[in-house]
Structures are given as structure tokens and as C-alpha cells.
């Protein structure tokens, strides 16, 4: 199957504008620093990582909510970064966005009907009457009462609002939706409702998802393929089974081992890998492999000097580590000691 979206060497640097001196020094936050992946039609690709790893920035660059610094983005054959005016408008019609916070992403002064009709108005679709009918239809599709078309966001809970956010993204029948943490603001029981809804809609409308989240369990459930990001780079990319059942990058393995599973007996038996310290500052990322400052496997000077390329470790499964292999961190390197030795950056 042909790739619907191809991202190649995507870079996004933000100039640091705090204070006169820093900007003169030309410092930049390297939010995304050379990210490549493809998304096939009809599939769900997950971008997962901790805060500040660049996953949201990647999503925003793809939708041109942010302009990338370098790299290539191709959508259905078109060079996205060169699109202008009408072409860009048409592109955004095909690639819609669902935001994290259903409280901030819906205008409190607009009714649900107005919010959902807005994309149709902007793109000049249908008459007033037709638009209203389509809003009602869509409310029903996302599991709300069509009568709610005249109600305001504040009258509803987070889960119901997120349904409207989803309905708005669907109004123009897009090919692809970028979901940026669509369920992380919701309670567990509501989270499950929204995840099910997104999956049903994917079936019904043949949608392609780029699914951005920090919750590994949610990503595992919803995604066909997963890209794990760390400090602006993809460190591992592969089918969800491969990535979860046989992580090849020490960061992926640590991340997976750090998530407590809702099963007390299993949790008692599990050895968890405690990474030392915090994620380094993306203004001044570590040399060589960006993970080497926290990696239990790091060997010097190799890891601090040579940046490992993303290489194939199995068919369709890539990892960016000099020592990539299934479960690279042996048991004796796990455990508590990391908690207390050298927490420094």
C-alpha cells in the first residue's frame, strides 16, 4: 500500500527569545531534529514519548500549524511545505486536527452547531440548511443528541466536549486526522468511550490517524505502528507488537518497564528499570547519542561521540542504538541504585 504521508528529515528549531543575550547568541530549542517516518493509508501510527520529546511539534509541523525549519513532508504525493493559499487550504481540509484539551479548544461563545459548522463555512461547503443537517448527523455519529446543536460547551463534561472536537474534525470528511493527546485530559471510563469512538470512526470513514500520546497503554491499544521519540529524534519505530514485545532500544525498554501495570501480582514480580536524572535540556542536547546521559548501557567514548543512525533490526522494525537488540538492558543493570548515584545533568 502506498504511503499517504511521508516525513523525511523533519527539523523544527525554535529560537530562544528569552532575554536579549540569549537570542543574540542564536540559541535554539531543537524540538524536532531529523525525524523520518511514513504513514500508510488507513493505518494508525503512534508517536509516543515524554514531555518535550517533540511529538506534538512534529504533528503541528505536518499540519503546517508550525512551519518546519527543514525536511520534507509529502502528503498523497504533494510537497506539503511548498503549498500556498488554495492548495494549502485544500490540504488542511484533508488533514484535520484533534486537540488535547476539550476545554480550551472549543470557543465558549459558540454553540456546538456553530463550532462544527465553522470548517464548512470556511471551506464554503453547502447552504446554511445543509450545514445544519450535517452537524446534526455528525453529532449523532459521535454519540451525542442532535438536539444539542444549540447548546454551549460549558453545559457539557470533558468527554462530551471531546466528542464535539472529534465531530468538528470530521465535518470536512478528511483523509487523515492528527490526534494530539486526545484522551489524556479525560477520566479512565470516559477515555475508553473516546478510544472506541475513534476506532469506529476510522472503520466507518476509512481514516488514517497520526496518534500522539504519552500513555503507552493507549498507544499500544490503538496503533498499528509506533514511533518512540526522545529529545527530538525517533529512537525506535516498528509494528506495535515488535516494539512492545521486543523493544530494541534501551529507552523503549526503560519506558515500558516504568509503566506500572494494573495487576498487583505482576507488578510485584516485575523488575523496573529506573533511569537516572531528567530529560536533558533540548537547547543543549547531549553529544552523540542523546540518550547516553541516562542510558545504563552507554559506553564511552562511542555513545557520547557517535550518533547512532536509525537502522533496521528486523523487517519493518528500526532502532537507533549502537547496541540495539531485543531487550538490550540485562537484569543486573536494572533496579534501585540508579536512583541515588549521580542525578546530575
Amino acid at each position, binding site marked *: 500500500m502506498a504511503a499517504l504521508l511521508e516525513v523525511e528529515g523533519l527539523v523544527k528549531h525554535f529560537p530562544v527569545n528569552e532575554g536579549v543575550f540569549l537570542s543574540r547568541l542564536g540559541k535554539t530549542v531543537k524540538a524536532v531534529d531529523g525525524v523520518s517516518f511514513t504513514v500508510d493509508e488507513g493505518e494508525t501510527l503512534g508517536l509516543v514519548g*515524554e*514531555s518535550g520529546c517533540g511529538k506534538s511539534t512534529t504533528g503541528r509541523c505536518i499540519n503546517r500549524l508550525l512551519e518546519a525549519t527543514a525536511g520534507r513532508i509529502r502528503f498523497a504525493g504533494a510537497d506539503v511545505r511548498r503549498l500556498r493559499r488554495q492548495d494549502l487550504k485544500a490540504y488542511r481540509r484533508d488533514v484535520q486536527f484533534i486537540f488535547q484539551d476539550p476545554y480550551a479548544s472549543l470557543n465558549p461563545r459558540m454553540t456546538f452547531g456553530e463550532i462544527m459548522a465553522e470548517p464548512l463555512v470556511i471551506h464554503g461547503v453547502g447552504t446554511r440548511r445543509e450545514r445544519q443537517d450535517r452537524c446534526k448527523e455528525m453529532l449523532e455519529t459521535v454519540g451525542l443528541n442532535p438536539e444539542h446543536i444549540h447548546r454551549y460547551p460549558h453545559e457539557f*463534561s470533558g*468527554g*462530551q466536549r471531546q466528542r464535539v472536537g472529534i465531530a468538528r474534525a470530521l465535518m470536512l470528511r478528511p483523509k487523515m486526522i492528527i490526534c494530539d493527546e486526545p484522551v489524556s485530559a479525560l*477520566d*479512565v*471510563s*470516559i*477515555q*475508553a*468511550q473516546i*478510544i*472506541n469512538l475513534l*476506532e469506529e470512526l476510522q472503520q466507518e470513514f476509512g481514516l488514517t490517524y497520526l496518534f500522539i500520546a*504519552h500513555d*503507552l*497503554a*493507549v498507544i*499500544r*491499544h*490503538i496503533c498499528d505502528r509506533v514511533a518512540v521519540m526522545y529529545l527530538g529524534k525517533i529512537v525506535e519505530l516498528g509494528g506495535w*507488537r515488535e516494539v512492545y514485545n521486543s523493544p530494541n532500544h534501551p529507552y523503549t525498554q*526503560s*519506558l515500558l*518497564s*516504568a*509503566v*506500572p*501495570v*494494573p*495487576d*498487583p*501480582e*505482576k*507488578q510485584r514480580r516485575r523488575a*523496573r*528499570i*529506573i*533511569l537516572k536524572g*531528567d*530529560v536533558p535540556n533540548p537547547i543543549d542536547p547531549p553529544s552523540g547519542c542523546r540518550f547516553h546521559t*541516562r542510558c545504563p548501557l552507554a559506553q564511552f567514548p562511542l555513545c557520547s561521540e557517535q550518533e547512532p543512525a536509525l537502522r533496521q533490526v528486523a523487517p519493518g522494525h528500526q532502532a537507533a542504538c549502537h547496541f540495539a537488540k531485543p531487550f538490550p538492558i540485562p537484569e543486573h543493570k536494572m533496579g*534501585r541504585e540508579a*536512583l*541515588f548515584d*549521580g*542525578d*546530575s545533568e
Partner: protein
Amino acid sequence: MAPLLEVDDLHMHFFTRDGVVKACDGVTFTLEAGRTLGVVGESGSGKSVTAMTIMRLIPEPPGKVVSGDIRFKGESILAMSEREQRRLRGNRIAMIFQDPMTSLNPVYRIGEQIAEPLRLHKKMTRKEAWAAAVELLRRVGIPQAEERARNYPHEFSGGMRQRAMIAMALACGPDILIADEPTTALDVTIQAQILELMQEIQQRTESAIIMITHDLGVVADMADHIMVMYAGKAVEYGSADEVFYHPLHPYTWGLLDSLPRHDVDDKGALCPIQGQPPSLIHLPPGCAFGPRCAYAGPACRRTVPPLVDIEQGHLSACLFAGDAAFIARYENRVTRAGAGAEVGG
């Protein structure tokens, strides 16, 4: 000997213009030294209000303890004078708040903030307290503690601030540590560090922990006993294994079922709880969970089910929890999913 902490049918209501909000409406549990109680529930279920009531941190009015009692080592906290309560708070019972960004004072050095309870409760001199604060920072794994104590909160990362909060809570060697969503604002690798730290401290100091969270994974990791809350009420209470492996309340069933499975390769649709949580001002008649419960009958609309001991220390507030055939309806369903789990490894 009296248990360390007993909460006995506690009702904390808020009297507002819109009506009486029954934020905590019948909570009962006991806590022994060296044990961890996990309190789970969705937002608005009354978890935090229960904790704040134990700490006597809720302003009255608008809040009021309508009935019930809280006893610390056999002595009623509610009957204590303000002065006696102050001697307890931060000294015998300490709290770790969710958001380390807002709960540290930005204009005081970290070290001074940790030293404050020591000077207040232990009557240490400024110098003694500072030395003790540095030692505490070292104990929670802050490198170069001596220099770091002189830092202000903004110079700390999120994980380090939470460690500083823990150091502050530990300062007086409390008998009970109440942690309100201590890792919710943190990334998973940092969460793993903090959970590991809390367990290590508990093993050393024998303090009891009340762990409030919405994350069932965190509860499975930390808790000996679990209390599940819904709409201000404790709906289930029991040992962690009992609550996870033989839950006796349909709300707990719903919570466990709505989680994405972490261990099964077959990804079916999730089973969310239908509907929305009720407003705490207009609770539905009878069982508050009734309108969302897949198993509810007419009796559930008439009677508010009391929290009853069903099997030696495993309590449930469901009218049918004692009915083996009723419970079997859930357990049989578990067996089917369990068969799948075997295959998936």
C-alpha cells in the same frame, strides 16, 4: 491498641449557593503503620476532599463535617482544638500535593522550605534545621544537596521539585504520609523514580501511606489495601489482590474493564462505563452508580446501598455484592478474557 488512623463514616459537605455538594459522603477505612492504602476514583469522586478533611485543610464554611469521625491513634482529630491540630499537621501527618509547581513557595529557597516544619515542630535552630534539610534532600536523591538547598523552586525540574516536596513531608518523620496524585504531573520515567523512592522510604521508616490516584497501575504497584470511590462514597474496600482479582462492585468492574489490556495481543474494543458521572448536587436516587450500571435493577433506584463487609474485610456498597450468582456474572466474563491472556503471554 487503636489503629493508626480510623475514618468512620465521614461526611464532608459543602454548602454552596447552588445547593449542598456532598463531596465526601460516607467514607470508612482504617490504616495501620507501615501500610499503604490506595484511594482510586475519577475526578470529582471525593478522593482529595477526604484527604483534605483528614488534614483539616478545608475551610469551614463552606465545608462542614456533617457526621462521622477521624481518629488518629484513637484520638478524634475533629474534636481537637486548632492548636492540637496544628501539632499534628505536617508533623505526625504530612501531605504531598499533586502539583509541585504550585505547592512550593517560589520566593523561598528549597532548603528553607524544608527546614520550616523542623523549626516549627521540632524547635530546631535555623542552623540545625538547615543541616537537616540538606540531609533530607540527600535522602530523596538530590545530587549536590548542599548547593541545591540554596536553589529556588524554579531552578528545579518537575521530578526534583516533587522530591523536594517529599523531603519536606518527611522532615518530621510523620506516621502518615498522604500523597495526592504525587506522580500525575510527571513523566513515566520520573514517576518510576518517585514511586521507587516512596517505597524505599516506607521500608525504612515504617510510615503509613495514603496514595490517592486515578491510575490503577500506580495503585497496583503501591497499595496493600484499596478504596474505590464514586460520587463521594467509598463503594469498595479490600486488599489490593481482592479488589483487582475479585472485585465486588460493578463500578470497579467497569473501571478495570475500561483499561486497555497490557498483556493481550488480541485488541478488541474496550468496555467503557456508559454515560457520565452524576452531579454531586443532584445525585440520582438510590445507588449513585445505578444510572450507569449495566447490572442495575429496580431496587437500585430505591435504596442507597450501604458499605457492607461481604467477605472478611472486603467491603462493597452494592446491594447484590453478597449474591454469588450476581458476582459470577462478572467473574465468568473475566475467565473468558483470562483465556486470551494465556495465549498472549
